[in-house]
Each structure stands twice: as C-alpha cells, then as structure tokens.
C-alpha cells in the first residue's frame, strides 16, 4: 500500500513550503486556529470508550492480592481455599510469571506478581479471576500468605545509612540505585570569581498524578493464539515490549496492544504495569476475556509519581548577580523499583543550565531504593524539584544583593542557538519575553514588596519564577537507532484522509495534533479526517505520550507523511490540469492553480487523479531527533529537539495569624514555539497552573510509620481522593496566560511543547510570593499552611525565618559519589566527551 517512489518523495526540509517553521500566521489555514479537538464531541457526549467501559461475553474479573507488609520475604502462599470458592476461574502467583520487566532496559526489576519478596505495601502477590469482581475480591481474602519481615528502608536518609537489607541485588551498592557525578567546566575557578556564594538545602515531597480514570485493562487471548489487550496506557509500545518479554515464548507479533483514550495520565500510565501483564497471562490461562479495573487505592500503589528529592545547592554569582558556578546535589527517594528512576536522577541535574547560563556546573545525584510505592515520571519528570530549588535560591540571591528577582533572571538568560555547559543545544529561546510579559501584566514592579493588606487582614505578596522543559527526549529508551515516531497516511477516493499513528491521546489532544498538521499541508478539514492511533497491530510505532514529545516528534512524522502525500496528489492533478505541480495550492479541501484559482478540483477528485496515475495512495513519515552534542555517559538525558520556556508571577494572600494563604491570581507566560491550536494550548497552560498549584500548596505522598508487635508498619497515609488533597474548583485562581511564540526550527510549524513546562515555575513562585508577603522562607514543597505558620513563629521568636530541611551537615546524607566525570564546556573547547571517562566497548550497532 505504501508508495515509496523516490521520484515523488522529497527530502523533509523544504524551505519553499508554506509550512516552514516561521510561516506567517496569515498564510496558515488550520494551524493556530481554535479548531475543536477531533474527538471532543464524543467525549462530551459520554461516548468515548475508556478501558473500563469495555466488556466482552464470558468476561472474567480479576483482582490482585497485594502485600500488607512493607518489606518481606514470601515464605509460602496457600491459595487452596480461594480456589475452592465458587466462581473462581483462575489463580496466578509469581511462579507463573517468572520473567522480570521494567520500563528501562537497565532496570528490569519488577515482576507482575512478586515471586519471593515484597517491597512495599501494595506490591501484588496473587491474581485471582472470577465470574464476578466481588468473588475475586472475596477469594483474595481467603489466600494465606506467610511473610518473613525484613527491615524497612523508609526514605532517603535510611537508604543512605543502611546497606542491608538490600531491596534489590543490583544497583551501585547497598540501597543506592544510581549515583551520578558530572562536572562541567572549572568549579573552583567559578566560585573564585563569585562575589557572593549561597548554599541552601531544599526538600520536595513526593506527589502523584491522580488521574481521574483509574487504570483498567481488558485482555483477550483468542483461539488463533493471538493476544489483545486494551489498556489505559500512555505507552502501548512499551507495554507491547513488556508483554513480549514476560509472556515468552508468545511471539511479539501475536500480541496486540490497544491503548484506550486515557482518562488523564500525567505520566502515571507510562510504565508497563503488573496488572496488565497479569491480566494478559490470566486470559491465556483461562481462555476467557479478563478485565481488571483498579480501585483508587491501587492507583496510588501504581504511583510512578514525583520523587521526593532532597537537594543541596551551592551557587556563586558575581556582584551583578551573574551566575559563575553551580554545585548541585540531589538525593532521590526512588521507592521500591527502578521504573524511570535512572532518567529521573539525571533529570534532577539536566535542565538547570537551559534557562540561565551557568559557566561551571557540577551535578551529583543519588537515587535510593526504599519501601514505598515506586516513583517515576510525573509531568515535568525530575525537573520540578531542582527547578524549585534553583528558583527559590535565585530569589534569595536577588534579595541578598538588592536586585529585582525579575532582573537577575533577565541578566542570566541562556543565549538562544547555543550549547549549554552540559552540551544541551538550545534553539529558540523566548524566556526573556515571557518574563517581560508577566512582569508587565502583574504590575510586578509597582506591587512587589508592598505587603498590601486585604480587607480581611491578609497580606499580599508576589512571587516570580521561570522554567524550561523538553519537547521530547532526544534519546529513546531503547538505543536502537530507529525512528521515535511513525505516521502512515491513507488517502481514499472519497477524499477521506486516514492518519495511522502509534501515539496515544491522554486528553492533551495528540490525535488532533495529527489532523491539524496533515490538514494544513493537504488543505483538508481536520474534523473530516479519521485518526487511528495507539494500536500496535495497525499503527506504526510511536514511543508514547511522555516527555512532551508528541507535538514535535509525531508532528514532524505527520508532516513528512503529509508532504509526501501532497507531492503524489499534486503530480496527479498537475498532469490533469496541465499546470506545474509547484503552482498548485491545497486549501479549503480543494487543489487549484495559484494563478487561476477557478482552475482546480475538489480534494476528493484530486485523490482520484493521483490514484489513477499511481495506484492506491498511502505514504509514511517518520521522525528521529537530531543527534545530541553530549557524548559523555549520562549525556543521553536532557537533549531535546527544542526547549519550551515559562515565566510566572503568582499572587498570594497570607493570614499572618495562621499561615493559611490563598492564591487569587496567576500570570503565566509560555514560549510554545508556535501554538498549533491556540485554545488547546491555553488549556494545557491552565491545566499546568492547576497541577503546579496543587503541588505547591497541598499534594503529597506521605507515609505512616509505626511499630506494631515488633514490626515496622510503613504504609501510604492517605491513598484516597478525599485525603490526597487536590485543588477543587474553589482553589483555582484567575489565570492570565500569555502565549509567546518563538518559532523553533526543529518543530512542526515551529511548535514546541506546552503540556508540562508551565507547571514547573508554579511551586517556586508560590514560595517566593509567601516570602514577599510575610518575609519567611519555606524551602520545602508543599508549602502547606502549617509550614508557613512554623516559619512565622520562628521569625517571631527571632530565629531564622525559615521552614525547611537543615542547612547543616546533617541536612543531607553522607554519600560517596566517587570521582566525577569531567567534561570541558563548549567555551573551554570541549567536544562533549568526558576527558576522564573510561573507554566503553562499542555495542553492536542497532
């Protein structure tokens, strides 16, 4: 079906096309317009079928029996009573699924059902399928599991202090999963040049995604030996890989993963999950369709949310506030498994240099295994924690030096089209413009530092912060040289354009992004297209909806496929009309002569012409990001085709008697490159403000830590919608959003990401605003009421007006990071390699 004739395909970069990255707005018919999402009407009608909305005849319901202890060896499992319960049709334990899996090749440390050891309260041990969900639940209660309890590792300090018992038999040593130590430039020289040096300690408590939809999966193994699983996943491709691995010897091409529309993901549905693998295996065991729909509490056990991170940051600036050196330590509480943790660790050190020019930079990161639900990627993946630290610290520096916090940022901006100290390639860079927008909009210069009183006696304050985020990870999870995204187009004689792509719509509108790009290039109505996505049998691989990669990567692949289709159709029409193909215009579902617009035909007629000439019309496009400049070990995390930028000003009103505060208004500017759809981009900005506000004010994954009959009880304190506090309609502030468009040459039509970036500056901006209002520092997220109160009390008592982790030696654990990898910066003549890195053996290519 796919036509791949070199005569009719062209290279991707076309400077003459109207769809170049810096196209004028008035030349675009679809891009930038507030067209509704292609799936919007089904969603509002309640017709969108999420995973738990699916059912099949003879379907069984599966439940998981989960560990009730935090850390233990499994001595025995007795399922005999459960098996005897009427209605029970299948039971699986760890021995039925012995092959481990994990999202990253370097941490294949999970089992669908724990074979010998449980590592947190909630770790699954037994799966039971029955004719009714209640029967499966009752059957789980009849299973007897004997545990031999092991000492619990309850957090960062404990992970550092206790090498035994180890949670896993891999990693650096003891319970240290990862240690990274990267040094760029000359720190000694950098600090020597500093006129002012600060060292601060920060803590960012873990939090979770809390998507409204609870994960669900439906698996079916047919009599032809083919497995199909419908699941709430953001990454069908990686689930496909995990299933192929764990269900061995079932061949990968017998496995079909269909990602249902996700009822919110935010990163929480990016890992392959134990329940998905267990459901698939159960379907194979029983020969019947098997559904599992997690409870809300189980969603907390899936977690993979924000890592708790303890940070110590030492920063040096010259007398005008220009950063001369940054020495940053991060300590991550990884929870029980690897998940994306290797990447998360690097991300806590990767993007500091992308907002502000840091001439000399040293990053040390450590990730610990602990007996908590595993942490992973949540919106902003590993970067909100260091962003909080850096932005609060810059605020402190500005105060120390008497410089306007907005100005110190403007003075430190990383230059556009440059390489950072850690070899990240910055392209377009609109942060300066973002800062100017929010400064002007909020009346920053006039209103800051005024401590105005509200009518009810609260004190107003303004806080500013900035951030940057990736438009997709530059390197894939599996280093295989294959495209990150593939798109296939089919043009029907009716004029229908069908887009096939492995990307997954999690509410962000990725299905619609495909239609806007293809619609613009082919001049057809995006709402008239058909989109087939996230089905591993039908759609070309797209790595998934994570790291804000879809708009740029899938978008570029769609662009290429559409350009190729356009060329084929143009050739067909050119012959028919006797007009040069280069003169043809594709717009308004017509193809016509630019010099004589009446001379033309409908798009459907154009497809017929082309099909008559070339046969069935189908094209493909794919995308691989540019090669990274960073060649040192660890340089794989951080590179991206482009970086988005955000700046925000947050207004708070603090009750000085109680520490209770509210956030009435937020100004948020985001450099999106180009908004492919204005209204949908606004939705992402507002949603990011919302989620960031939740993290800033209240959201946290905290644990109960008690002792009972000699054993330690260590369990998530509040795994419910009610007690895991998430802002309601009443907490949402007024938001003034500014869409800054600094067209980026690597993005389709110049677009960059928007789904994650605007979340990042919210947390530090809230903390900075509290300081502006009442003069106290809360160096810990969330900035909850009681912490503001405690800092106010400390201030009143003449102590340091601060709440946060100790700045003393006990504030961070003692960790031997070993020797650093030393990398010369670009301005030192570095080539992106570490000059002291031991030679690695070359892996077999691809």
């Amino acid at each position, binding site marked *: 079906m796919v036509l791949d004739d070199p005569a009719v395909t062209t290279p991707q970069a076309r400077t003459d096309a109207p769809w170049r990255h810096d196209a004028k707005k008035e030349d675009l018919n679809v891009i930038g317009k*507030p067209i*509704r*999402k292609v*799936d*919007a*009407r*089904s*969603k*509002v*009608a*309640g*017709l*969108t*079928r*999420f995973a*738990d*909305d699916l*059912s099949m005849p003879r379907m069984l319901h599966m439940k998981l029996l989960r560990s009730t202890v935090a850390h233990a060896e499994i001595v025995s499992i007795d399922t005999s009573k459960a098996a005897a319960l009427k209605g029970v049709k299948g039971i699986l334990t760890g021995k039925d699924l012995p092959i481990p899996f994990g999202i990253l090749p370097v941490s294949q440390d999970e089992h669908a059902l724990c074979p010998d050891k449980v590592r947190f309260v909630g770790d699954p041990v037994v799966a039971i399928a029955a004719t009714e969900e209640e029967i499966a639940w009752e059957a789980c209660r009849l299973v007897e599991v004997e545990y031999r309890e092991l000492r619990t590792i309850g957090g960062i300090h404990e992970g550092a202090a206790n090498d035994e018992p180890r949670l896993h038999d891999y990693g650096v040593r003891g319970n240290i999963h990862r240690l990274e130590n990267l040094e760029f430039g000359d720190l000694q020289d950098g600090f020597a040049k500093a006129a002012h040096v600060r060292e601060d300690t920060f803590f960012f408590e873990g939090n979770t*995604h*809390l*998507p*409204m*939809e*609870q994960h669900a999966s439906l698996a079916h193994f047919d009599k032809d030996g083919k497995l199909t699983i419908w699941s709430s996943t953001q990454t069908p491709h990686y689930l496909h890989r995990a299933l192929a691995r764990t269900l061995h010897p079932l061949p990968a091409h017998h496995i079909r993963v269909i990602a249902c*529309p*996700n*009822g*919110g993901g*935010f990163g929480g549905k990016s890992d392959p999950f134990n329940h998905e693998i267990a459901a698939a295996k159960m379907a194979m065991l029983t020969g019947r369709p098997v559904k599992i729909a997690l*409870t*809300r509490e189980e969603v907390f056990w899936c977690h993979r949310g924000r890592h708790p991170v303890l940070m110590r940051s030492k920063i040096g600036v010259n007398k005008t506030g220009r950063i001369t050196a940054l020495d940053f330590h991060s300590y991550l509480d990884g929870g029980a498994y690897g998940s994306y943790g290797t990447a998360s660790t690097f991300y806590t050190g990767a993007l500091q240099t992308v907002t502000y020019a840091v001439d000399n930079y040293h990053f040390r990161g450590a990730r610990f295994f602990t007996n908590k639900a595993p942490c992973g990627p949540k919106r902003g993946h590993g970067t909100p924690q260091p962003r909080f630290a850096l932005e609060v610290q810059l605020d402190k520096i500005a105060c120390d030096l008497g410089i306007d916090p907005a100005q110190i940022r403007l003075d430190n901006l990383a230059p556009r089209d440059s390489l950072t100290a850690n070899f990240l390639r910055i392209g377009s860079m609109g942060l300066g413009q973002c800062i100017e927008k929010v400064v002007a909009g909020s009346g920053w210069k006039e209103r800051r530092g005024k401590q105005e009183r509200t009518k009810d006696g609260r004190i107003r304050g303004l806080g500013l912060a900035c951030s940057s985020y990736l438009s997709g990870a530059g390197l894939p999870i599996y280093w295989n040289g294959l495209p990150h995204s593939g798109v296939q187009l089919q043009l029907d004689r009716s004029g229908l354009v069908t887009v096939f792509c492995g990307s997954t719509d*999690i*509410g*962000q*509108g990725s299905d619609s992004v495909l239609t806007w790009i293809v619609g613009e290039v082919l001049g057809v109505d995006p709402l008239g297209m058909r989109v087939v996505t996230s089905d591993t049998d039908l759609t070309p691989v797209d790595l998934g909806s994570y790291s804000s990669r879809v708009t740029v990567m899938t978008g570029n692949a769609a662009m290429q496929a559409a350009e190729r289709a356009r060329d084929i159709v143009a050739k067909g029409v050119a012959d028919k009309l006797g007009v040069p193909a280069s003169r043809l215009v594709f717009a308004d579902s017509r193809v016509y002569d630019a010099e004589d617009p009446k001379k033309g035909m409908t798009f459907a007629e154009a497809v017929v012409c082309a099909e008559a000439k070339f046969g069935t019309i189908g094209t493909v496009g794919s995308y691989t990001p540019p090669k990274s400049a960073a060649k040192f070990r660890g340089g794989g995390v951080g590179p991206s085709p482009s970086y988005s930028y955000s700046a925000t000003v947050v207004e708070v009103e603090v009750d000085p008697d109680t520490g209770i505060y509210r956030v009435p208004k937020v100004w948020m500017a985001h450099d999106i490159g180009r908004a492919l759809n*204005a*209204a*949908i981009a*606004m*939705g992402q*900005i*507002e*949603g*990011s*403000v*919302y*989620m960031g506000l939740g993290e800033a004010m209240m959201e946290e994954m905290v644990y109960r830590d008690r002792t009972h009959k000699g054993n330690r009880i260590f369990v998530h304190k509040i795994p*419910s*919608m*009610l007690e895991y506090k*998430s802002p*309601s*309609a*009443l907490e*949402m502030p007024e*938001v*003034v*959003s*500014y*869409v800054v468009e600094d067209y980026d040459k690597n993005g389709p039509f110049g677009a960059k990401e928007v789904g994650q970036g605007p979340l990042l500056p919210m947390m530090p901006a809230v903390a900075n605003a509290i300081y502006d209002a009442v003069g106290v520092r809360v160096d810990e997220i969330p900035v909850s009421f009681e912490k503001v109160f405690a800092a106010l009390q400390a201030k009143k008592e003449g102590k340091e007006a601060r709440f946060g982790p100790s700045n003393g030696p006990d504030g961070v654990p003692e960790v031997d990071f070993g020797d650093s990898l030393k990398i010369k910066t670009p301005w030192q003549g570095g080539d992106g390699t570490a000059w002291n890195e031991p030679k690695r053996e070359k892996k077999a290519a691809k």
Partner: protein
Amino acid sequence: MSEPNKVLETFSVNGEPHEVAFLPHKTLLEVLREEMGLTGTKHGCELGECGTCTVQIDGTPVLSCLVLAVDAVGKDVRTVEGMACGSGLHPLQDVFADLGAAQCGYCTPGVLMAADALLRDNNSPTREEIKQCLAGNLCRCTGYLKIFEAVEIAAARMRGEDAQPSEESIYGAR
C-alpha cells in the same frame, strides 16, 4: 446468609423505560454501567469523593456511586447520554467541545450533569455560582477555567444570546 435474589425493576432513564434484573445492593452506578450498558457515566473513587459519577435524579445532581439502584426506581434518572437531542448536542456539550473544556473527558459527564442542573435553576449564573456548583466535581486536566467559561457561554446561548469565547481565553492575553 443466603444468596440475595435479583429484583426485576423498570427504570426511567433519559425518559425511556429500562427493565433490568439486578441484586438489590447494587448502586445506580453499577446498574447503569454494567446492566444497562450506559458507560457514559464514569467513576473515579466510588466513595463520593470525586464527583465523576454524577447523574441527575428528578433533576437533582447526585453521586450514582452512593445511590442504591432500587431507590432510583420510579424516579427520573438522567445521564450524559440523555443530554444530546437528535443528532445535535446540548448547548453545554457543544461549548465544552469547542472550547476544550473537556481534555481527557473523564470528569466531563459528571461536570455536565452538575452544570446542566444549575442552568435549569438559574439561567444566568455568576462565575462564583458556577464555581460553587462544581465544587464537588474534581478535574485534573483543565484547571476548571475553560469549564467555567463554557458554562457561562452555554448559559448565554440558552438565553438566546450570541455568546462567543473571549479572545483572551483562546489566544491568551496580549
């Protein structure tokens, strides 16, 4: 205790009778989704803590996860599937779709049910009244702002006004 027997009852859902056999301890949420196949009503906690499963009973928005199905017999049950008329959509649905007030769309049916009940009582609610009305419906995607605006625009259109979203809400502030 002995196995409870199913009961056979006729429900009025979206103005149509539905005869269903179900166990008497089943909630309306379970019966709507699992017995009637009306999966437009979603669920996020089943404990009354999120608002996702909101439906209307005799015009009042309630949480279907905490209503026994038997208690809805003889009453007028309305779900998101009953909002649209013919091939078109209800004005609320229409604006929600156009404005991007539904992102993942999972909380949307519940939000629509609550908002629809509000507009029946109050055809020109203030922003504050809309917020209060939706104070029991959690949304994790939108930050609520597009939802508030969509309700305002839909209300205006239902009053016969030609309301459009503001330039600022679509393109941002200048």
